[in-house]
């Protein structure tokens, strides 16, 4: 019975989307979306606890045994990402109602929920599938719905941002599919586990190397690996608040998962991979992302863009751990997927509340002045999430950075340790800019105290509370991530 949940996890949101479009009622759409998100979370937790107890689950879709049929496969790593995605979804969905009602025209609202369900289905599908081409299809489902979500933003710049993301995103997905095509030519299989086995017997390695390059660049575009991050700031800044919160917390993280999957489960057993400087290149790009994107964030005027650049920097931390390639660093990376997802989710959900009360589409740093007096709880939440972004002890961000530093020390790369600390200091600068204006500047004349609506606020504060919770109780975050890292490095946990 339990193994059927693996398919249901994807099928449920996928079926909800057309249902919502047929009913064409925004209240029903919201109810269905929320119900689906909660159901996915329950299923994800049930599946994940089974995986952490008794090892990977496999499900043969349509009862065609792998490698001929499409296999859905859940191991420690994908279970971890599955929980992250459905957890974020179940925080964002109930919060969405007020935010969407405020930002999107009434006749388009049900469509937005339908797109959100499709995006959820795509992301969950990417996580559970064990088939390279099936992964491409889910990647495109998630991407196409993301482009629509972004284009629904209020300002006309949202359209241009969606268009640019669509061009780059499609190029990225096509690069991925070229890479998979080359691998298919060399191995004759699309099942990832089977592919890894057969790759070891391939003599002609040049197409395999080309495939590695295509997949790295393609997925790098989707996860906004520096310098392929150009689409991200505008997409995050001009999308509706709810879409930003959901995409920022999940979409890039699932792409990181795909990269991990290919690097460690497919390519790693191939002897030539060990001699390539992939790790070194990743470390270089990650360090560049951490420093430059953080610096850009310090000088950015638009609040959502500021935190979007901060996302590029934080993705740098995650890819840094992949480049360092040892147990501690990978644990840090995978933990940071969850911790940064929760932190950035909390920030964008809180900003959604500010946008709602400001009743203006754009939000500059100056607009936050006196926020602590106008919206004290929101400002408090921003401080907590900001601390987690910096990596102050006692917050989630600290835990993952701690493991990354341990990983860097293990490799003897002291300069990387210095860069991690320096980038965190720059994060202090941009978070402080926001906090200073929110707490020390007086509110604009005539502004009255009006907190965000309760539904939005409670979702936001719950996410902020998670930032603190994962800073103290690391049994799921680090425990799960350590299992996943051990699995990737080929040791049994």
């Amino acid at each position, binding site marked *: 019975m339990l193994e059927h949940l693996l398919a249901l996890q994807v099928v449920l949101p996928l079926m909800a989307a057309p249902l919502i479009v047929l009913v064409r009622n925004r209240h029903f759409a919201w109810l269905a979306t929320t119900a689906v998100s909660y159901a996915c979370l329950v299923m994800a937790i049930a599946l994940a606890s089974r995986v952490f107890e008794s090892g990977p689950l496999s499900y043969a879709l349509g009862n065609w045994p792998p490698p001929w049929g499409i296999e859905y496969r859940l191991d420690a790593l994908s279970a971890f990402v599955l929980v992250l995605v459905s957890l974020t979804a179940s925080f964002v969905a109930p919060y969405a109602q007020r935010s969407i009602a405020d930002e999107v025209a009434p006749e388009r609202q049900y469509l937005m929920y339908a797109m959100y369900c499709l995006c959820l289905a795509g992301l969950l599908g990417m996580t559970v599938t064990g088939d390279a081409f099936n992964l491409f299809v889910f990647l495109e489902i998630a991407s196409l719905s993301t482009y629509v979500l972004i284009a629904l933003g209020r300002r006309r710049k949202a*359209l241009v941002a969606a268009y640019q993301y669509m061009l780059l995103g499609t190029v990225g997905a096509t690069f991925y599919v070229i890479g998979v095509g080359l691998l298919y030519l060399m191995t004759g299989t699309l099942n990832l586990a089977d592919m890894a086995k057969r790759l070891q017997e391939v003599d002609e390695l040049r197409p395999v190397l080309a495939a590695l390059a295509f997949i790295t660049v393609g997925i790098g575009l989707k996860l906004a690996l520096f310098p392929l991050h150009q689409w991200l700031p505008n997409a995050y800044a001009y999308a509706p608040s709810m879409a930003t919160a959901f995409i920022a917390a999940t979409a890039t993280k699932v792409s990181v998962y795909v990269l991990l999957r290919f690097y460690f489960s497919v390519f790693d057993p191939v002897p030539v991979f060990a001699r390539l400087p992939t790790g070194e290149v990743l470390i270089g790009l990650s360090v560049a992302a951490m420093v430059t994107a953080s610096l850009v964030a310090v000088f950015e005027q638009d609040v959502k863009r500021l935190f979007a650049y901060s996302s590029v920097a934080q993705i740098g931390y995650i890819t840094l751990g992949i480049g360092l390639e040892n147990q501690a660093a990978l644990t840090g990376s995978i933990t940071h997927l969850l911790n940064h997802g929760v932190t950035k989710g909390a920030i964008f959900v809180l900003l959604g509340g500010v946008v709602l009360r400001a009743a203006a589409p754009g939000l500059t740093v100056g607009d936050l002045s006196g926020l602590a007096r106008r919206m004290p709880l929101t400002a408090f939440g921003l401080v907590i999430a900001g601390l987690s972004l910096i990596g102050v002890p006692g917050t989630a961000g600290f835990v993952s950075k701690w493991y990354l530093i341990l990983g860097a020390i293990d490799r003897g790369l002291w300069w990387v340790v210095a860069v991690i600390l320096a980038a965190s200091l720059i994060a202090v600068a941009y978070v402080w800019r926001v906090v200073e204006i929110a707490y020390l500047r007086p509110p604009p004349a005539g502004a009255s105290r009006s907190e965000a609506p309760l539904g939005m606020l409670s979702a936001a504060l719950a996410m902020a509370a998670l930032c603190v919770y994962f800073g103290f109780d690391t049994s799921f975050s680090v425990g799960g991530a350590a299992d996943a890292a051990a699995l990737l490095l080929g040791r049994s946990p």
Partner: protein
Amino acid sequence: MTPAYLSYWLTIFLMVAGLYILIARGNLLKKLIGLAVFQTSVYLLYIAPGKLIGGTAPIVAEGFTRYSNPLPHVLILTAIVVGVATLALGLAITVRIREAYGTVEEDEILERDRADAE
């Protein structure tokens, strides 16, 4: 007699031509055409190696021993659907951009955004 790897050379030509149009053109519609050419090249990459000269459809029958691989065709059928969906969405967004900005030229759109900011 066709030169060796002809289908691969054609694929690479289409791939690079598509990417070039995508990058070099400022017109949003022309960029989409480039994107479509680029995606189409991938169809060829999958389909061409699956075909054996003289091979038939993989149906077991007397007198046929060489079969073409049907799987790439199925995969590309899916990829074509994805490509059509992407192109449709791209065109739809372009229509909306044209309604909002009154132009589909990238430089003019950027100019109007700058004018907004001032």
